[in-house]
């Protein structure tokens, strides 16, 4: 129970905190506006940008761009029913809206640097790549909105969802309760990742499936978040909302573990109709991962 002194001091503290600026200066507003117009949003980053920002990746980036251009060239010259990367639909002739950049064609080798142990992978065949000249796809690094750190990498589509890669990031101790306590990093081994998932109350986890990735023993699980899971948009990332399905891969890097997670189309508030195809494509992607290359 508060005492009269508490209430008095509360009022004084209120008065103390009332004092000070209550408006942003025009100078600050103008500086922010300048910054906004000069700054790209994450998620609309050109695919090569993250590579150019990394130290030794210039050569690889050049190769990737060359392969991507070659892929586009091949696809443009294919007959209409030519299978992968068929000719562009009429939409392709119009400029894409400025909300993203198409993913590179299937088969493109990409390198991911922002992890403790860099790796390459081969672009798999995602659901819309053969039929939709996608305007909303992107490939980028993205960060933890709280810490501001760039801690993850993703392939992202407004059509089919996304695939994210995580290493050296804090995670919710209970993925069903992202606002609760957190753990400092991805658990150290795939088996420990399994234990962490199993301990998340409200998360339905399937039996583990073993996979071999670059000669290492990885594990994957399918998870579904129960209706009682938090729906708040709180961090750390990644976090799951109620009623979502994901496939989670734990890949040992030697000293650490990388998590790969598939996502439905929740970015566009759609259903998860493509998730099974995304999972299958991501199986291929994970199997193609190579470390230290």
């Amino acid at each position, binding site marked *: 129970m508060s005492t009269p002194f508490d209430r008095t001091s509360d009022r*004084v503290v209120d008065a*103390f905190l009332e004092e000070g600026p209550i408006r942003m200066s025009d100078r600050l507003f103008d500086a*922010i506006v300048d910054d*906004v117009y000069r700054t790209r949003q994450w998620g609309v980053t050109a695919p090569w940008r993250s590579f150019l920002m990394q130290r030794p990746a210039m050569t690889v980036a050049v190769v990737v761009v060359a392969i991507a251009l070659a892929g586009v060239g091949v696809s443009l010259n294919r007959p209409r029913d030519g299978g992968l990367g068929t000719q562009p639909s009429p939409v392709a002739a119009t400029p894409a809206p400025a*909300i993203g950049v198409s993913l590179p064609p299937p088969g493109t080798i990409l390198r991911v640097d922002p992890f403790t142990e860099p790796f390459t992978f081969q672009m798999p065949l995602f659901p819309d790549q053969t039929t939709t000249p996608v305007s909303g796809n992107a490939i980028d690094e993205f960060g933890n909105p709280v810490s501001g750190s760039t801690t993850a990498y993703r392939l992202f589509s407004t059509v089919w969802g996304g695939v994210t890669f995580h290493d050296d990031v804090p995670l919710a101790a209970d993925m069903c309760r992202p606002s609760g306590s957190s753990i400092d990093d991805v658990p150290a081994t795939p088996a420990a990742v399994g234990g962490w998932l199993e301990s998340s109350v409200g998360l339905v986890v399937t039996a583990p499936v073993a996979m071999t990735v670059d000669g290492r023993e990885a594990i994957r699980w399918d998870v579904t978040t129960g209706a009682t899971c938090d729906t708040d948009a*709180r961090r750390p990332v990644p976090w799951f909302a109620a009623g979502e399905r994901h496939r989670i891969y734990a890949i040992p890097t030697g000293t650490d573990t990388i998590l790969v997670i598939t996502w439905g189309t929740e970015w566009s508030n759609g259903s998860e109709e493509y998730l099974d195809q995304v999972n299958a494509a991501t199986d291929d992607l994970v199997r193609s991962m190579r470390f230290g290359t």
Partner: protein
Amino acid sequence: MQRALVLRAQQGDEQAFVALVREVGDTCMAIAYRILRDVDLAEDAVQASIVMAWRQLRALRDPDRFEAWLYRLLVHACYSEAKRARRHRAEIIDAWPDQAVTRDDTLTVQNRDQLERGFRKLSPDQRAILVLHHYLGMTISEVADHLAIPEGTAKSRLHYASSAMRAALEADARVVEIPRERSA
């Protein structure tokens, strides 16, 4: 209205985002100043957090929570600025140049000095709790929600911070004269 602007801004519409900044920028400045007690640091924190919000806007999954999300970015930017300030500067700036300010006449000069000293002894996260609770009028659970911390943690930080401020006021009677700190 705000939701529509957020959705447009998530599609890369700079004008929509600037409109959002017009809506929430003043509150951001007020919060940041009250946590940092320094106009320059507060402006840096506001600028950093708003630009970060623009960069990461696509990561915001619920457009209705834009403001809460932005305030969380802002508070963390304030933590960073406070850390930077500890490293690089020690002076206290007691001036609000080119700013619209409020001053409360119910505070005595000595009250103000004592509270200022008490407040500056608090850690940035304790200051943030006080500002969100006392200045913005948030409940403990709203504060916990905005800062993404457990409610118990918010409660204990607020308890500590309030006690410290009360102690500062109580010390008022014991202090004969304390020279007012001023910036150079």
